[in-house]
């Protein structure tokens, strides 16, 4: 039998190891890609009419020095960890000399907002319909609603996104299909701005919710279908406990434990952004940022975004693991 504090310490050690390995792997993968940020920068400068062959080598040397990309990959690796230990993600290479943290900070709230709202709404909707559908198996309405969401689940969300764009942006043009708010709008906090931001988030959120609900629904329905055959549920029904109480206190609460694990994982993955959704709807989040960083060979920015994602997912798993024994008596610390 392991004591709980020892268990937490062991899991924390695993968490640190996962973060270290994940970030290290990302460092080497990004540095092994054929895209060189210096050459990308030279390419950009050349597109600006600068293509004197005599000047290119001089430009290359200057930029390598400026970006701090001199020395072997191991020296750069040690330098990177040295910086990261002080919380410094370094300057972006495709937006030099702006710090990576500043660039991420601009995009992160949009992704967190969109993804958190989408994940939570999807979770609530999917579990509510799933629980009801599992318990009231004869309800035609619930069957029909379930069928709609389950049918939507395998549709790639970007396909649904395009359908929504056509429907609400062209056929029935009532919702914005691009960006986070109206162009040239006053960005001082006001009811108008909040409503505008909400309006711009409807379609991207809807594309995620419509596709994501089915997964939670199927899981919850299966869990409820199992639980309703348990003895304590049968006894409660025979004992005349009101149906609503049985569903809420006997079935849903027990079924929710594994679902909350999934929710925590999903919230941890919020930092990944939803790349394609953000691109399709022109949403200014970290998904869009990640793609542009990859194309530009911006190691620093890719590493910053990856570190965020790795820490987010690893932390979510760590928190679930250490809370598990406290909230579910069936889980033993061993």
């Amino acid at each position, binding site marked *: 039998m392991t004591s709980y504090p020892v268990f937490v310490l062991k899991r924390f050690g695993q968490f640190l190891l996962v973060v270290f390995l994940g970030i290290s792997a990302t460092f080497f993968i990004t540095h092994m890609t054929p895209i060189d940020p210096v050459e990308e920068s030279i390419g950009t400068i050349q597109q600006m009419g600068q293509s004197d062959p005599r000047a290119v080598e001089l430009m290359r040397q200057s930029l390598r020095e400026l970006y701090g990309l001199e020395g072997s990959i191991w020296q750069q690796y040690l330098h990177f960890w040295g910086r990261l230990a002080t919380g410094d993600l370094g300057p972006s290479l495709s937006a030099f000399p702006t710090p990576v943290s500043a660039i991420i900070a601009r995009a992160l709230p949009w992704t967190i907002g969109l993804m958190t709202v989408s994940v939570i709404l999807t979770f609530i909707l999917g579990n509510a319909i799933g629980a009801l559908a599992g318990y009231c198996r004869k309800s035609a309405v619930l069957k029909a609603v379930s069928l709609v969401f389950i049918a939507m689940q395998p549709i790639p969300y970007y396909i649904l996104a395009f359908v929504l764009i056509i429907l609400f942006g062209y056929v029935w043009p009532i919702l914005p299909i691009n960006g986070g708010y109206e162009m040239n709008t006053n960005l001082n906090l006001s009811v108008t701005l909040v409503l505008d931001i909400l*309006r711009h988030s409807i379609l991207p959120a809807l594309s995620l919710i419509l596709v994501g609900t089915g997964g939670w629904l199927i899981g919850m329905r299966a869990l409820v279908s199992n639980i309703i055959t348990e003895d304590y549920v049968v006894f409660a029904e025979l004992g005349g406990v009101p149906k609503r109480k049985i569903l809420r206190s006997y079935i849903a609460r027990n079924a929710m434990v594994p679902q909350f694990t999934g929710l925590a994982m999903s919230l941890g993955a919020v930092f990944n952004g939803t790349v394609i959704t953000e691109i399709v709807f022109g949403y200014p989040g970290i998904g869009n940022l990640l793609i542009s960083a990859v194309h530009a060979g911006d190691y620093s920015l890719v590493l910053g975004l990856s570190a965020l994602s790795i820490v987010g997912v690893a932390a979510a798993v760590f928190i679930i693991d250490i809370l598990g024994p406290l909230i579910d008596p069936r889980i033993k610390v061993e």
Partner: protein
Amino acid sequence: MKQWKKLAFGVALATFGLIAAAKAQDYTALPRKETLIVENPEGTIKNPGWFNIWVNGGGGVSTGLQQLTMDTLWYIDPEKGLGGSAWDNSLASDKPQYNNDFTQMTVKLRKGIYWSDGVEFTADDVVYTVKTQMDHPGMNWSAAFSVQVASVEAPDPYTVVFKLKKPNSRFHAIFTVRWNGAWIMPKHVFEKVADPVRYDFANPVSLGAYKLKAFDPQGKWYTWEKRDDWQRTSLARFGEPAPKYVSYVDPGPPDKRTIAQLEHNLDIIHDNTPEGMFTLKEKSKTVESWFPGFPFAHPDPTLPAVIFNNQDPLFQNPDVRWALALLIDIKAVDMASYRGAATLSALGVPPTAVAMTDYQAPMQDWLKNFEIDTGKRKIKPYDPTIGQQIADILRKQPKYKDQIPTDPAAISSAFGYGWWKPDPQAAAELFEKAGFKKVGGKWMTPDGQPFKIRLTVEGDTRSVFTRAGTLIAQQWAAFGIDSKAAPSTSVWQAGLQPGDYQVAIAWSVETWGGDPDLSFFLDSWHSEFVAKKGENQAPRNWQRWSNPELDKIIENIRRISADDPKGIELGKDYLKLVAQQMPTIPLMSYNVFTSMDTTYWKGYPTIADPYTDPVPNWANSRLMMVKLKPAQP
């Protein structure tokens, strides 16, 4: 259950409220009739608050920053320009004045030009621009100035004298805008800054007719407002700019651009898919394009081609390169790539603007009589009627039949003159002449290995040319060559630059467009700049082709001034040489499907009034501002 119902009802009500509050979506909160809305192809800007265009700091360039607020000494328009010439003395009051051996360039500056903060533009700004960048490696023009400029002085406020390290009759090109050029820095702003490399130039002072009004902190749009003192800018020579506001936006992928323009929310689409353009022309009564009918697109002065790696032993023999050219059915490639909307070129210059009158038309007779020796016979490979044939094919399509020109000059202008005839028999003879053999239906190299070609294309990045490359690879494969298209997301940096490719679809020819001087790209093709195998190649000779005859042509061009008529004759010598040697197989111009909505603005540049290139990320597109007129009272 009641709570659930309440919650569901609440969510539904809130959503309905948001939708009900929505009008048909507007892009802008500004008065629409006074605002020109333009696509910026750079998309969402990563570092939106970075306006220091002299440092590659992740800020946008064609956000309006270079088109509306920057200025430099000269412009060459890719089309005809305003004021009767493609050449425009912008901040300079005259053309560059060189000494006899091209080691000194004197510039006379225009008087009465002011920065938007009321400070006068003078020679000190030009001197500061050059010296500051030379002193700060890493700035965009630092290396180019450092390798060329020995000294720069201002003997008076309106004169600048450059002394050069080596003779260079084209030194002025660095200050001459094609797409852009070395923009002049505001000395009075930057001299107060500790480090110009790390300065964001927020609230940029402007030398153009517009100044910054607002920008999206998320990088999706930039809005510029006409200066009250616009008369004190170089653009004022052509008249008053009409739009009070100009917004450059990231409207998203082609489908969304198309929808936005159909809803009159996007006045200029920078580029579109051919299919997007066809949809717009079909569904909108207010959309204009460069050509009024098919092929609609503007031919940019850029020449996509099949580029051989001439350092690969397989492609060092011109007979092999010619054989591969004779296996291409260009009509099928045109249909596959641009759906018939390509402007073809057999010559090594883009078929657009002055190149049509100075090179393409005059060289038609030479092309018709041009012969190659297959080793068994001499053939005349040129078919001058290809453009006409493509027009005839398109005319059979009911959708386009009324939009296809019938006038031969208009057909040449839209579809190009001619191209090489597919001739598999001659190709086989040329391969055999080069020592290749066909064994069991497959071609073998002279050393007995299967002839294998990987044709690198850019995948989704440039789908039109990916389609072209894929079809060309298939045409070679049908002839018995083990040929496949190989998509790569980084053709330029990972393929062309290090020379890590066999054959690619890309371009190594870009011209001024409005000026026949070919040195803009040709100077960099000199053997002195060809990298050793395995080393990075400087632009633009991606084919790594080295030829003593070409070197002589380039050296002769260097010895004459840019406007010397001999330059055109030397340009023709280059065209004949590359037709004989085929270091690349020229295909077509880079056609840009720019579309312009006339709901709010009229007076866009078109083939009927070609005062500039309509493609709005070009700095020359500033001319549009003075030619546009409101379409509504």
